[in-house]
């Protein structure tokens, strides 16, 4: 019997990596804390209606469902923490009318993996800011996201920024029905110019040309100028391009920056700016975020919101393993005499390992040992 076999896309995190994951998580949460983000820890299971909004098919298919024998209702195993945090802001913290900053770190479970190399149990770390619609809030969250990635050890980050209101504005102005909008959305996500041309064949100008232009509007900040000339001047588009230019001005020189007006992949619930982080070595985005105003409406309180999240497991997968810290060996026969010294060393943060079998330095993970001398306990090299 192969009872040790794990399900597909499910893996243990083994010693060295587990420590690396844990310290990266702690560093990120500490960084969030000092920026005023309060930690929340929502439950693993909830009623399905709270976890997945009715029209979010993609999240629905990713969510494991189970029956609650206590209530007879259906529960879901969370596949995304963002809706849970939105529920907390909308409902439990509803007496707060100002800005609320929340952060979290926890496992989510996906019934279907995001990709062939994705874990079905991502470790989602993220931060959300509620109650302020200004672009300053988006910049705050982008800064937090970049810092979190750098803390995790990622270098040469490229930030790609888009704006979903530009697409939504065009859809509304061209009066497209929901099905056509969905098909266009899918074709835009893959910059599938040929399919977009087919789909918009019957759409009135100037919207037809605008949809055809969208997949070509990506690249450095200078692209925003050509976007201005190629897209009609709808209020949503004016505002979107203005916000993107503001982002360009604020972040120029601080991070490798690019823009993409057809990048809509971040999420179903987004309403405004979208930001995605890439880095050499990862074949997909490392962290995603954006503005999702009114996400709390279905919980009874609509208000501005922006945030980001990343999968710490995916992050650690590519990073070079760090050499774990080496410890101090103490031969077990030296106890109980050495007890006080061992306790003292451990209190300073040293790893102190009791050696029962007389093992090698390699096996014990130690590079020093504690020995008794005429002058008391001394630490000497151990090979």
């Amino acid at each position: 019997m192969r009872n040790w076999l794990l399900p597909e896309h499910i893996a243990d995190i083994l010693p060295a990596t587990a420590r690396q994951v844990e310290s990266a998580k702690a560093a990120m949460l500490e960084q969030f804390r000092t920026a005023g983000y309060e930690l929340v820890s929502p439950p693993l299971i909830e009623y399905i209606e709270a976890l997945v909004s009715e029209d979010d098919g993609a999240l629905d298919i990713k969510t494991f469902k189970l029956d609650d024998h206590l209530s007879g209702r259906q529960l879901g195993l969370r596949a995304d923490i963002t809706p849970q945090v939105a529920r907390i802001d909308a409902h439990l913290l509803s007496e707060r009318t100002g800005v609320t900053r929340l952060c979290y770190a926890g496992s989510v479970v996906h019934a279907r993996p995001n990709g062939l190399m994705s874990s079905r149990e991502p470790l989602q770390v993220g931060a959300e800011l509620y109650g302020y619609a200004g672009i300053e809030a988006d910049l705050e969250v982008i800064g937090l996201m970049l810092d979190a990635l750098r803390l995790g050890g990622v270098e040469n980050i490229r930030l790609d920024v888009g704006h979903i209101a530009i697409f939504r504005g065009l859809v509304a102005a061209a009066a497209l029905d929901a099905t056509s909008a969905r098909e266009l959305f899918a074709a835009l996500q893959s910059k599938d110019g040929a399919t977009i041309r087919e789909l918009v064949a019957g759409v009135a100008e100037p919207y037809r040309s605008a949809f055809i232009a969208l997949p070509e509007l990506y690249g450095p900040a200078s692209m925003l100028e050509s976007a201005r000339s190629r897209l009609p001047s709808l209020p949503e588009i004016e505002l979107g391009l203005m916000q993107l230019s503001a982002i360009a001005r604020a972040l120029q020189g601080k991070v490798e920056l690019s823009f993409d007006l057809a990048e809509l992949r971040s999420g179903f619930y987004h309403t405004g700016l979208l930001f995605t982080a890439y880095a050499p070595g990862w074949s997909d985005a490392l962290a995603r975020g954006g503005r999702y105003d009114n996400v709390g409406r279905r919980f009874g309180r609509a208000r501005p919101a922006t945030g980001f999240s990343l999968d710490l497991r995916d992050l650690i997968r590519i990073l070079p393993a760090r050499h774990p810290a080496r410890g101090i060996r103490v031969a077990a026969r030296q106890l109980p005499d050495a007890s006080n010294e061992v306790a003292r060393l451990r209190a300073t943060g040293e790893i102190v390992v009791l050696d029962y079998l007389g093992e090698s330095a390699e096996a014990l993970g130690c590079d020093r040992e504690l020995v008794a001398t005429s002058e008391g306990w001394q630490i000497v090299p151990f090979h």
Partner: protein
Amino acid sequence: MKLTIALSKGRIFEETLPLLAAAGIVPAEDPESSRKLVIDTNHEHVKLVIVRASDVPTYVQYGAADLGIAGRDVLIEHGGDGLYQPLDLNIARCKMMVAVSNDFDYEAAVKHGARLKIATKYPQIAREHFARKGVHVDIIKLYGSMELAPLVGLADAIVDLVSTGNTLKANNLLAVEHILDISSRLVVNQAALKLKYSTIQPVLDAFASAVPA
């Protein structure tokens, strides 16, 4: 910056050569005669990897190659998740068709509401096509010699690529329905387009300007 392009041997490779030439890329060897799977080019930083046509999207999706050229048929079957498909290259053109044996009355069978057995290498395209028509089908996935299936009673119809129609004719089959026009697309890894923009965009532009009409 390094650039890896995934290609399949045969027709796609032949018809891609002029596009590569437009981007100033010339392969150092001919994959038909070489056994190498990684082929150098006249540029130090550009490599070609030779893979099966149906594997091209997988290599590009996971970043093993930055760019690739794959048929629309292959992309639909793969799902195309996580790939950009910015350019229809208008090469390796053919049609995805439904074909039946000369003596099978397809119209009547469909009208009748019969449940059809369909042999195909393209289950995704076949399933989607018949679902849109409102016809119940059982899909039999085959890997080659599709034309045999109706002749030996394995299937009522086949869904397959047709370029000249000669194979159908030689086996007493008749194309009865046109599903899709197929041609090859340029596919790009999404992270690569962002991270290697300045290397990839000129190649994309060169390809776009050289696409045959």
